[in-house]
């Protein structure tokens, strides 16, 4: 569980997006696009889920990309090459169903771009026509642009402030694309409001849409129910039933609220441990 590589992908106002490569052969051997791991930085730490962005079976490594959001991701950001994680388990969750959908649109927002990358690659390898739409608040926050551009048949970028690509939101591009072609799948990962809005747009055009949900988790193996979400009026555990679900039937409101529940405690911990 040693970190073999570390790279800062973006740094905006001290909030960094970081890529690390971790040596963990038994996960590297098995991880498939769409799956995630749960890790602990220290023995007294929390267990947090991160998507497996890529895996190298020969070297026995996996790549993770994370944003310094709160306490644990900031702690993780402090580790250097050669340091070891306290715990790392996976691959968890169902892998994405990789098949021929015909024309596919991938939508990535913020650090969600990292999560669509492995799926994009696999869908491309399976012979799909790929349209990628990346969204970021501002140009410097954009990650994996070259990698995704090079595998996409069509490529769009939007920034909230217009500093790069088209000014606006990913949904603006989606609204232009959907009436023009027939798409077999829209796959979206990003902040909840983005995924919710994507679902709203694609529903109007009746284009099947999958999202990967970022519910809070503890074990990640179906043992606690912390990650439960309501999909199609049923309670599902994201870690074992997901993390991908049909976007149209997700109860976004509930997910938003459940993801906020420890915000005050996490902030308190950041102040206390002087982790900014």
């Amino acid at each position, binding site marked *: 569980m040693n970190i073999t590589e570390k790279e800062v992908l973006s740094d905006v106002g001290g909030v960094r997006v970081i890529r690390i490569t971790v040596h963990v052969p038994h996960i590297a051997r098995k991880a498939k696009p769409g799956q995630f791991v749960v890790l602990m930085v220290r023995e007294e730490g929390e267990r947090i889920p991160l998507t497996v962005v890529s895996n190298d079976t020969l070297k026995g490594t996996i790549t993770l990309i994370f944003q310094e959001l709160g306490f644990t991701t900031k702690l993780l950001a402090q580790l250097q090459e050669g340091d070891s994680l306290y715990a790392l388990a996976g691959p968890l969750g169902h892998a994405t169903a990789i098949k021929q959908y015909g024309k596919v649109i991938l939508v990535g927002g913020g650090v969600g771009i990292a999560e669509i990358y492995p799926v994009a690659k696999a869908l491309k390898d399976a012979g799909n026509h790929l349209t990628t739409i990346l969204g970021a608040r501002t140009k410097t926050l954009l990650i994996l642009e070259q990698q995704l551009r090079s595998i996409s048949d069509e490529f769009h970028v939007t920034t909230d402030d217009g500093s790069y690509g088209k000014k606006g939101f990913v949904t603006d591009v989606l609204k232009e694309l959907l009436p023009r072609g027939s798409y077999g799948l829209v796959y979206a990962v990003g902040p909840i409001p983005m995924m919710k809005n994507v679902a709203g747009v694609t529903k109007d055009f009746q284009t099947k849409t999958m999202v990967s949900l970022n519910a809070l988790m503890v074990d990640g193996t179906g043992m606690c129910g912390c990650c439960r979400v309501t999909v199609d009026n049923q309670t599902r555990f994201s870690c074992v039933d997901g993390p991908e679900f049909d976007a149209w039937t997700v109860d976004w409101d*509930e997910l938003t609220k459940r993801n906020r529940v420890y915000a005050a405690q996490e902030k308190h911990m950041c102040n206390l441990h002087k982790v900014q």
Partner: protein
Amino acid sequence: MRKDPVKIKEVAAAVRVNNFQEVVAGYSEEETLHEASRCLQCKNPACSSGCPVGIDIKKFIYQITQKDYQGAYLTIREKNNFPSICGRVCPAEYQCRNACVLTKKGSPYASDQAINIHFLERFVGDYGMHNQNSTFNVQRPTSNVKKVAVVGSGPAGLCCAGELARAGIKVDMFESLHKLGGVLRYGIPPFRLPRDILDSEINSLKAMGVTFIPNFIVGKNITLEELFTQGYTGIFLGLGAGIPSFLGIPGENFCNVYSANEFLTRVNLMSAYAFPKTHTPVTIGRHIVVVGGGNTAMDSARVALRLQKMNDIAPDTTILYRRTEIEMPARRLEIEHAKEEGVKFRLLVKPEAFLGDEQGLVHNIKCLQCELGEPDASGRRRPIEIKGSDFELECDEAIIAIGLKANQILTSVTPQLKTDSYADVIVNQDTMETSVKGVFAGGDIVGGEGTVIEAMGMAKKAAQAMLDTVSQ
């Protein structure tokens, strides 16, 4: 004249609610001898038939009276690998003590007069542990012996690993979590089972040559076939009942509604009681409601109440149970302890809905009063709702402790492993072998939620069958 049972010493309720230290102090040597001397040494002792693994109780008690604690330890160890653990968590009042001749006929659980077999067992177990007898008669594994994979480190896995290691078999134990022990670690709180006891038992297995591989999920990291191709000649599955059940009532996904598993995992496994020194948070409500009547409910309520005390919140934790106290499946001692500590009990109550606010936080729980009807399939009287008896309780945190289902992380990707309608693994009852040759199973993954000693009994049976096959 018949002697009175020796009362067990306990930390006073007012003191113990402020910490997670062990509540039951255990017998001194003198008390042990006194309690042992109450045993009638029956000609046909009934007690052993009540013990799921058939410990020769009469014999070990006799050995105690002779101060032959080493002998008593060996007698217990013949059937039970972890007497220090069972002596603390065994629901003896439903098992060996219920069968003891001193229990009044027809009582639902052991009478007070029944010999305190579990406390005697605990004394002997701790004696054995402190005198380093746990590694007794170990045959060191040699390099070319057969290799067995044990999946899951709960009591079933631990027991099976111990049995096989003792016979000189190389054992690798895989556990998906970062710490070992299964429910003994993440479910049962340290004030019932101190972690040094659990660690000591695990360390003694290490000393016997068992290799522990945490953070490793069989089914995800490796398939059963791959284990065989890697040279394992047998596999034992002690996967446990890991999936929490919910009530299925409105409002259950409000943010401050926990499954008992999540609540206990946060506190016991992730040490949330020490937050923010440890990093996993847990919600501590002012009006905590726990739903259920088993050990999990008692543990949740007692942990919740401690968290309130330790955070200067006036304790207000209430257990809601749909039957009466008699039908509660929890250990009687835990029910008593919960009451002493100030946990409130609302019986014959069935939750109907959680009522919450804009932010998704529950503030009230709507309930119905019940009465008892005819016995159901479990033999317990069925609760029947009383129409129009709805009432509301203040509740800003709820913990659902109504049962667990089979852990399916391995079985869901292993179709050749036959399961029943509850997703429990089907085994040959004589050998504990599953539908896959060379793969054995035991514990809660077979037949659903049971007890620690039942899990160990099955594991022991499986280990014996595995020894018979691998040595062929």
